[in-house]
């Protein structure tokens, strides 16, 4: 049984013509890192907020650790959340921000102090416990937000475009840091992004979404190399779309401009003589002196 199970989840906002999320089915295993990838407005955040409890699903069920969490209030779910805008409490210093969840949870002072120290070491900001959020850079703020979310030892960690507000260089280093912390703690994670590179490099599995629907779920390699829909093919990676004539579906032979090529895979659902569309990734085409075998 998967750790997190979303079944037929659907969300229609009041006064909205189309559902924000529909037919959403997904199982996330314990310790897995899953990304929701898709263009802006496709329903990633809405789905994440339903898991966190900030939105109620119109229908469908969300089960975490064998328990239906739909009726549970967000502050009782024990789910850590990291926001794009960091959302640090401006009136508290770094240590108090990280310790907030523990304090609310009634932990003792020494216990909080120890855990906050651990967290500061984890994000490599041991020296900055007394700083206020406005005294930190964006990257540092987001690391504090991450530490604050995992300090309470949540069962699940949700991140909504955590790197989008940062500049490119920090984005890359923080991305790796998030992944390594996630591996170290083995915490089940759902990561929302519109950046395919982020999703592909971080995740165990990627959920590609479009207009409220799941287009494809799979490991990054599969998503990149074997997209099952045109949307996935065009949204993920750079592509050249070519019109081709199918020569022999069994061997994968196709013809472009009178030249015969081989796709390297049998072409299912296509008949000889049919016109089809293929998507080419730059870097995958090889040229040889004799013959044009792939």
């Amino acid at each position, binding site marked *: 049984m998967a750790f997190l199970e979303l079944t037929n989840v659907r969300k229609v906002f009041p006064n909205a013509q189309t559902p924000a999320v529909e037919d959403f089915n997904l199982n996330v295993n314990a310790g897995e890192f899953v990304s929701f990838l898709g263009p802006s407005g496709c329903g990633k955040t809405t789905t994440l907020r339903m898991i966190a409890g900030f939105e109620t699903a119109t229908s469908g069920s969300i089960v975490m650790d064998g328990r239906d969490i739909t009726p549970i*209030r967000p502050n009782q779910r024990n789910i850590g959340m990291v926001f794009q805008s960091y959302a640090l409490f401006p009136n508290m210093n770094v240590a108090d921000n990280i310790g907030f*969840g523990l304090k609310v949870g009634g932990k003792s002072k020494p216990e909080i102090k120890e855990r906050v120290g651990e967290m500061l070491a984890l994000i490599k900001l041991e020296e900055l416990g007394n700083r206020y959020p406005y005294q930190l850079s964006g990257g540092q703020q987001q690391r504090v937000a991450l530490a604050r979310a995992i300090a309470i030892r949540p069962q699940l960690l949700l991140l909504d475009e955590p790197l989008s507000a940062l500049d490119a260089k920090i984005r890359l280093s923080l991305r790796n840091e998030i992944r390594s912390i996630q591996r170290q703690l083995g915490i089940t994670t759902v990561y929302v992004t519109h950046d395919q590179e982020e999703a592909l490099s971080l995740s165990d599995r990627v959920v590609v979404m479009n207009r409220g629907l799941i287009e494809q779920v799979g490991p990054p390699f599969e998503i990149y190399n074997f997209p099952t829909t045109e949307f996935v093919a065009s949204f993920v990676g750079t592509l050249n779309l070519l019109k081709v004539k199918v020569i022999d579906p069994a061997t994968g032979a196709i013809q472009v401009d009178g030249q015969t090529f081989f796709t390297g895979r049998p072409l299912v659902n296509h008949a000889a003589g049919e016109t089809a569309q293929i998507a080419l990734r730059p870097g995958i085409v090889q040229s040889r002196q004799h013959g044009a075998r792939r």
Partner: protein
Amino acid sequence: MRKVAWVAWIIYIFGILYFVLPLFGTFIFSLQKSRGVLSLSAYQSAFADPKFLETFLFSNVMAVCTIIVSLLLVVPTAYWVQLRVPSWRPAVEFVTLLPFVIPAIVLVFGLIKTFGRPVTIFGVPVFPALTTSALSTDFLLVMAYVVLSLPYMYRAVDNGLRAMDVRVLTEAAQSLGAGWGTILWRIIIPNLRSALLSGALLTFAIVVGELTIATFLARPAFGPYLALLGNHKAYEPAALTIISFALTWLAMGLIDLVTRGSKRGPLTGAH
């Protein structure tokens, strides 16, 4: 360019004179109680009247009560509107502006008419007349002051809330296990500090000088005392006016000090 600057300066100076001259005149006048010399004897005589301290104290107590009730009413309301029903904001804002439209005299007669006799709903008595005892009249007075302070208090709190990302901060706190009380007390209110202070000081200034409502509810407040004094004395009211101006300026200086002290960088980072 230069010509515009000249005109601006002249208007500016004219504005300052328009504001400062009467005040300066009042101040000089308040020093002339003893014939031929400038002295503080008007101030001495104003302070010597036990009624001064009595009414001033009364109005201060009323002001503090008003601020407490107003905060309890406005902070959760404005927070909830911002968080859950932002589409109601124009309607709520309109309601809070009503005291500007409805004169205090209308408000106080409405209150007397409604609460001056036992209040019943469909013939069932709900509570007795509020104007029968001093304490219950004070209660009515505070409620009326809460209404008068609404435009200032609501605006101050609402501006403070808009300066932070209420929704995201609330959700961050919720995901960490906090309930509504904790969120309001540990996160929203501390970040509203300067907004609450300016709302409170404005309320204070309004209540301490208020005349109409206190007069018609016949309570021994500072406003009516000042007006009464003006009827049969010349120099003392001027002295008291200067004192209340000084208090207001002190309050404004405090606001400035507190707001300046809490000017911190971006509240919740980039968006």
